């Protein structure tokens, strides 16, 4: 094989190598200046290899390339492991924060026990400060002689609605506040109205489905006919069906079967809502429940004010019982503002 002629650069590097050997001994990886295979040189037993003798410290050519690639791969592996650990850590932190979240941070329809209690026990002082319901709500006074609406020997309040319905969602708030002054709910759960494209989608509310109500003064009959995603939920009882068909008409309520439909015994009825669902937009159940005791809150003014109007009607139905509720001046005032037959 013909010997290639060295270039000027190669000659210079060779001269420098010879000079280096004269002063510092053989280059790394060689015995007496003769090239040895990588890794062939062994340090004396028990001796720590010097920096110069460690191949990685001064590798040249293909060996250095392989070692460089190895280092890059090693750092890539560290980066990969770090990325996996980082994702696990992020999820872990989110789960911990979720598990230890404050009551007000739960989702739109999730209600804590405390929030349910806040709805069912709005202070009388707040209700008094809020006073009468705001305008725009027009319950109908049923004519004298309307047959009694009763169940179990007590006058009956009836609600017919559906979980998807945003107006029902808005109306349940004052109904729960008002009815809680005459009796006790159990099994109330938070939910939201239907998703888009429903108007006022995902309005936070309670559902009467699965709840029960006991009172010494009245009975409460409710039905949620569909879930928030329009699946059938509850079927009307024959009594509910008869009342709904008789009174939820164009002639009586001005609607043809709209929901929510509410009857306060044989005294008052309405189809529609006394609370604008728009004011609840973007609020979670716990946020709404949390402001009901604040008479300066616009949400409390709407819901508590409407509750006072419903309370005034129920007081008429129960013969102004219980007196601690019905004899309150603001309830008397609300009664005087109710439509006459």
């Amino acid at each position, binding site marked *: 094989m013909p010997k290639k002629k060295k270039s000027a650069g190669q000659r210079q590097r060779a001269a420098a190598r010879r000079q280096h050997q004269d002063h510092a001994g053989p280059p790394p990886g060689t015995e007496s200046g003769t090239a040895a295979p990588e890794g062939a040189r062994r340090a004396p037993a028990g001796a720590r290899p010097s920096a110069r003798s460690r191949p990685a410290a001064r590798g040249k050519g293909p060996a250095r390339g392989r070692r460089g690639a190895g280092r890059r791969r090693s750092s890539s592996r560290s*980066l*990969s492991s770090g*990325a996996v650990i980082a*994702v696990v850590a992020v999820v872990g932190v989110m789960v911990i924060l979720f598990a230890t*979240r404050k009551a007000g*941070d739960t*989702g*739109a329809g999730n209600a804590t026990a405390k929030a349910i209690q806040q709805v069912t026990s709005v202070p009388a002082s707040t209700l008094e400060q809020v006073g009468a319901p705001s305008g725009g709500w027009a319950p109908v006074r049923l004519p004298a002689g309307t047959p009694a609406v009763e169940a179990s020997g007590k006058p009956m309040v009836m609600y017919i609605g559906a979980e998807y319905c945003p107006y029902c969602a808005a109306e349940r708030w004052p109904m729960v506040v008002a009815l809680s002054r005459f009796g006790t709910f159990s099994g109330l759960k938070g939910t939201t109205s239907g998703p888009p494209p429903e108007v006022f989608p995902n309005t936070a509310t309670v559902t009467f489905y699965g709840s029960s109500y006991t009172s010494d003064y009245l009975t409460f009959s409710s039905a949620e006919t569909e879930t*928030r995603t329009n699946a059938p939920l509850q079927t009307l009882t024959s009594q509910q069906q008869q009342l709904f068909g008789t009174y939820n008409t164009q002639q009586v309520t001005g609607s043809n079967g709209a929901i929510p439909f509410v009857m306060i015994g044989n005294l008052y009825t309405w189809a529609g809502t006394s609370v604008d669902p728009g004011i609840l937009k973007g609020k979670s159940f716990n946020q709404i429940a949390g402001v009901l005791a604040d008479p300066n809150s616009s949400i409390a003014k709407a819901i508590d004010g409407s509750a006072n109007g419903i309370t005034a009607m129920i007081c008429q139905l129960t013969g102004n019982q219980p007196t601690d509720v019905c004899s309150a001046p603001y309830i008397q005032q609300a009664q005087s503002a109710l439509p006459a037959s």
Partner: protein
Amino acid sequence: MRVARWVPPATLALALIGLGASIYLTIAHFTSPDVLACSSSGTINCSLVTTSAQSAFLGMPVAVLGLVWFVVMTLLCLPAAWRSENRFVHLARLAGTIAGVGFALWLVYAELFIIGAICEWCTVAHLAAFGLFAIAVVTAPDLLAREE
């Protein structure tokens, strides 16, 4: 074989599990969320999650986006794809899983802190996405380095 023998079947299984969950969620999206075998009250509430404002991204249902993603990942996790000499296949798998797990993190955040409910079937898809991500990033250094 360029990766450990268990990698291709494991990733293919994860992709198929995620694909199954996505198909189920997509069917529920276009029919009714009530078809999902899942609690509909309390913290576990698929219906609440799949009908929330966060169930769509740029107007596209997230269930459909997940379906498309898992179809692509299934293709990229076939044994032939793992054996591929084409660097782009491995880069695409890596980039896809990074994007997928990033989106899954956002959805988990939305479930926990915006919607306040967890969807079991979505969680199956999220776990599958995370598994794919973990395997893809751990195998990537070797796969991509050999192409150098």
